[in-house]
């Protein structure tokens, strides 16, 4: 039995360990930062070039009007679902083990949404006119087209982004207060003072806090599901073969959770190493995520199979043709790769021994992410290259460096945001870890009296 969080761990130590992650970083941090910066720089450069010359530099054409941008956009949206899953859903399920890790998962949600938003922009032919898509009251009397799934998309994403930011923030208030109290005067201290909204840890504050947190959590879950369903309807509501599939929304949501969990494992390993969080991000927790991921992987595989089957047994020749072309055409290597990464690799997670083997799990999680990214690409591109009109079939355009560059850059952008977050805010929720520890200790002490006594003590302690 691996080492789990010790019930005897000192709360001061918890504060100390977590706050240490806010202190001036190790050299490794700077190295990563520079790499991320340069990646982002590349992406930015490509985008500026594309903006100047025109979308043609991405080497899109008729009929291949959408490229990696849309695929990557879906990928990042999907990524964002993990945070909600861990913090909101598991919160409602009172799964204690989520407590040390949900904070960075939420951050991930927020930042990947921001990244996804970028791709919507990058994709536009006339970026400088994007505001036409916003339903603002203009003297022109023209409105966006409310029939267009793309418009629903924009709205859903915006809503999701704003509410997940709120959720992230609310969840952090008690910790911010702790930071405020433990830091020497300086800009950070004043920042936390402002952000912690005068948190004192009084009973009333705790009550309101929990109520708010719960409400937002409840609000967030259906939202998260709807967001990716809407992204799915971008395709499902169109008329094209290979897109016009009823099972797309659940399929996309499953895919989203899947890639989200995979991403969590990746970041889990990284943070655990970088910030020395072995105490809190323990192997049993990893094991739990891995198992969860495996479950979702199976759901995704099932839905994937359902999609193929429903196309295969339909009389829709066009869609069938697309499917065949995916498996045999020029996209075949990527398509098989996707199926391998998405449906075969996860079986590694079944092996009990490997579930806690950090290097293996790290590798696996990366493969899963790759698979999920490929999945999105395989949804977008093949349909274009094998649509209804044979005269333009297989008129393929291999993405240019500009496209790859921007995709590449988006990862840099995400990393930047995330690293910034880790240095500015506690990436492990201190108060919840304390709760967790407390619950464990309760499990040991059985008497009502102790319970009562400790409870009062703890309440005061917890405030400081």
């Amino acid at each position, binding site marked *: 039995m691996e080492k789990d969080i010790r019930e005897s761990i000192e709360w001061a130590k918890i504060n100390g360990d977590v706050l240490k992650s806010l202190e001036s970083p190790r050299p490794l941090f700077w190295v990563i930062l520079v790499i991320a910066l340069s990646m982002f720089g590349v992406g930015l450069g490509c985008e500026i070039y594309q903006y100047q010359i025109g979308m043609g530099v991405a080497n899109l054409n008729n009929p291949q009007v959408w490229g990696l941008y849309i695929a990557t956009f879906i990928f990042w949206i999907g990524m964002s679902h993990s945070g909600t899953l861990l913090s909101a859903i598991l919160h409602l399920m009172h799964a204690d083990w989520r407590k040390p890790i949900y904070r960075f998962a939420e951050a991930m949600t927020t930042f990947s949404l921001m990244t996804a938003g970028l791709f919507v922009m990058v994709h536009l032919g*006339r970026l400088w006119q994007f505001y036409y898509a916003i339903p603002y009251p203009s003297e022109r009397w023209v409105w966006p087209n409310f029939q267009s799934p793309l418009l629903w998309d924009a709205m859903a994403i915006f809503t999701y982004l704003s509410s997940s930011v709120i959720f992230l923030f609310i969840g952090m208030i008690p910790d911010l207060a702790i930071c405020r109290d433990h830091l020497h005067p300086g800009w950070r201290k004043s920042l936390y003072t402002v952000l912690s909204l005068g948190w004192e840890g009084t009973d009333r504050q705790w009550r309101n806090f929990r109520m708010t947190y719960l409400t937002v959590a409840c609000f967030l879950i259906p939202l998260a599901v709807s967001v990716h369903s809407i992204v799915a309807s971008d395709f499902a509501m169109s008329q094209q073969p290979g897109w016009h599939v009823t099972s797309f929304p659940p399929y996309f949501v499953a895919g989203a959770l899947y890639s989200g969990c995979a991403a969590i494992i990746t970041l889990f390993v990284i943070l655990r190493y970088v910030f020395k969080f072995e105490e809190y991000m323990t192997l049993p927790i990893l094991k739990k995520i891995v198992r969860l991921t495996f479950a979702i992987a199976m759901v995704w595989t099932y839905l994937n199979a359902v999609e193929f089957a429903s196309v295969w047994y339909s009389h829709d020749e066009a869609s069938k*043709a697309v499917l065949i072309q995916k498996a045999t055409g020029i996209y075949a290597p990527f398509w098989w790769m996707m199926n391998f990464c998405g449906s075969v690799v996860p079986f590694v997670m079944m092996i009990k021994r490997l579930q806690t083997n950090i290097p293996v799990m790290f590798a696996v999680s990366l493969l899963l992410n790759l698979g999920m990214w490929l999945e999105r690409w395989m949804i977008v591109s093949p349909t274009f290259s094998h649509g*209804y009109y*044979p*005269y*333009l*079939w*297989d*008129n*393929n355009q291999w993405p240019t460096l500009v496209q790859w560059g921007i995709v590449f850059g988006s990862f840099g952008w995400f990393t930047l945001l995330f690293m910034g977050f880790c240095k500015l805010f506690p990436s492990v929720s201190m108060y919840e870890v304390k709760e967790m520890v407390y619950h464990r200790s309760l499990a040991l002490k059985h008497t009502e009296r102790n319970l009562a006594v400790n409870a009062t003590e703890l309440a005061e302690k917890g405030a400081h």
Partner: protein
Amino acid sequence: MIENSFNRRDFLKVLGWGGTAVALSGCGNTSIQDGVETVVSYVEPPEYAIPGISVYFNSTCAQCDAGCNITGRLREGRVLKLEGNPNSVINHGKLCGLGQAGVQAHYNPDRVREPLLRNGDKGEVIAWDKALGLINEKLSGVKGDEIAFLTGGLSGHVKVLLNNYLEALGSKNHYAYEAVSPSVVRAANKKAYGVEMPRLRLDKAKVVVSFGADFLGAWVSPVNFSQQYAKFRKADENGRGVLVQIESKMTLTGANADRWIVIRPGTEGILALGIVNALGASGVSLPADVAAVSKAYSSERVSKDTGVPAEQIEKLAALLKERSPSLVITGSAAEGYAHGSQNAAAIALLNRVLGNIGKTIEAPANVPFPQVAVTTGNRSSVQALNDSLANGKIKVLFSYGTNPVFTAPTALKFKENLGKVPFKIAFAHYLDETSREADLVLPLDSALEDWGTSVPEYLGEASQLSIQQPLMEKLHPNTKGLGDILLALLKQRREKEYKDYEDFYSYLRSAVVKNKSALGGSGEDDDTFWTNTLSNGIVPFSASSNNLSAKSSAAGLVLPPPADENSGYPLHLIPSVTASLRDGRHANQPWLQESPDPLTTIVWDSWVELHPKTAAKLGIVEGDIVEVTSRSGSVKAQAYLFPGIHPDAVSIPLGNGHVALGRWAKDVGVNAFGILDQVVDKETGELALNETRVKISKTGKRVFIVKDEGAVGGSQAGVKIAVRVSTDDVELSGEV
């Protein structure tokens, strides 16, 4: 309308109104802006030109020899678009892509703008009077027969002036050269029907059998034929016409045929006689002389020689017998081969046997003024010229409207012989390969800026004089019309005769107005007549049609056996004339380069058409860069696998492969003229275009062919896009 165009040119000096000429910011500023743009209004208001309203002027298309009548659409003094003139008897308001690209010839940025005098290997700008003076002095002391004038096909008053000028110089050397003209067909027609270009009535025919005549694409007068074709296809009282195309390489016309019959190159004549024989066998009475010739051609033998199945021949004969009148047309079958004339004669027999002469082959209306009638260009003339160049007989050479350095077979060494001429003058729109060699280049007005008249070779319903008039003011101040230049040159010689003509325009006007009574303008005063003439753009001749003489004898008609397999050069090269590029003089008009070749959908390049079978044999796949080698040279181009070609043949389109001409033509594709062998038709001495034998070798390089069709090429992959139905399963009668 207006009396005199020069006022009009002044009137037309006006800049664009809001968002016209400068409409290049289509999605630019999104809000109103005050006092930024300037509006320049007219100084004097032209009655007919209202800003924002289009005006239309009639003129004549100069893009090919069909000489369609066009209508130019003008806005604010700029010609925007060329459309067909509805009153034309040639094109009835329609216009082909080539014709419409005329505006790009006019606005082309690569036009010559100043007179250029050679200095070393570059041209220096000189003034017009200097240039003309120079010509005069170069001509002094040169004997008449040492002066030569090389042109393309030429007609109308420019031709009159040219002839007068040559006469004034005492020269008889007028060489009219057209690289892809149907010159052997003309000769054959002359023999068979008594006229060079009879009127073909597709619209009357129930069956049309064409031996490689691409009359829908690039042959003689495509727009006229296309309209007849539409009538011919319509299921009216004499039913939907049937088109059978017999050729070795599918042309646009072949692609539209009910039955496209692929034939071994050069054996068309044999097949024709085979059909005659089959007709005889099926009970059609053959004249003795014909029967004598044709009896040797049993279906079996013909089928062996031509590769056309015997039953196919029978079927065709049956169809011809059953459906009359029919029409048999000779195209590449005649132009292509050393025995082209015999082929043509044999094919003409078919028309005679089927009694089409007088029914679907009619006499053309004749041209009452022979001096303006067309001088058709041919290929033998350039050979003649080349000879006299070679032995230095020519001291001064004028060239206009043709580009032999590009189109003449390298075997002639034309370019190098040209060098032997001490002084060469080129009247040019562009610096093409030939005018680049000239010592003096005189810039010409575009066809839309110039005055002129023309009489097309193929006349259609009636003969007429087509008026060419400026549609807008000159783009470049220092260009001149050919007529004006010739007039100026004539004045050097015959001052008093021409002194009262201030310019070509006045010459033209008086020349036409003088004969107004003969031109149906009797009773009108000169100005009204002239005004009507200009507004119509057409002057109908009171035409008395001459008649055909159908007394050609088949006696002595012998056809050579099919060409033996030539081991060294196994394949026949069939250079194809495409509808948009023709002989390549318009290759610098981007619309023509960008509009896909109808059959291969390839753009912006040349290609080598190979039958998939041949390709498989040679291990060639689409996109391979192959080297096509003849005895006279070789070119490298991309291979395109094309089912519509005889396995023993390869085809390269003509017109591309320029080394000069302009930004859109230079270094695009390869020039197939270059590798043609100098083999001529025995009777006429015309270059036989399809007689070149080639061999093909891979170079190892491979490219993606730039074409419009997708990777699945011509397949519809079972999707119902373009549907075809057999006459059995469709009810055509009563269609509107």
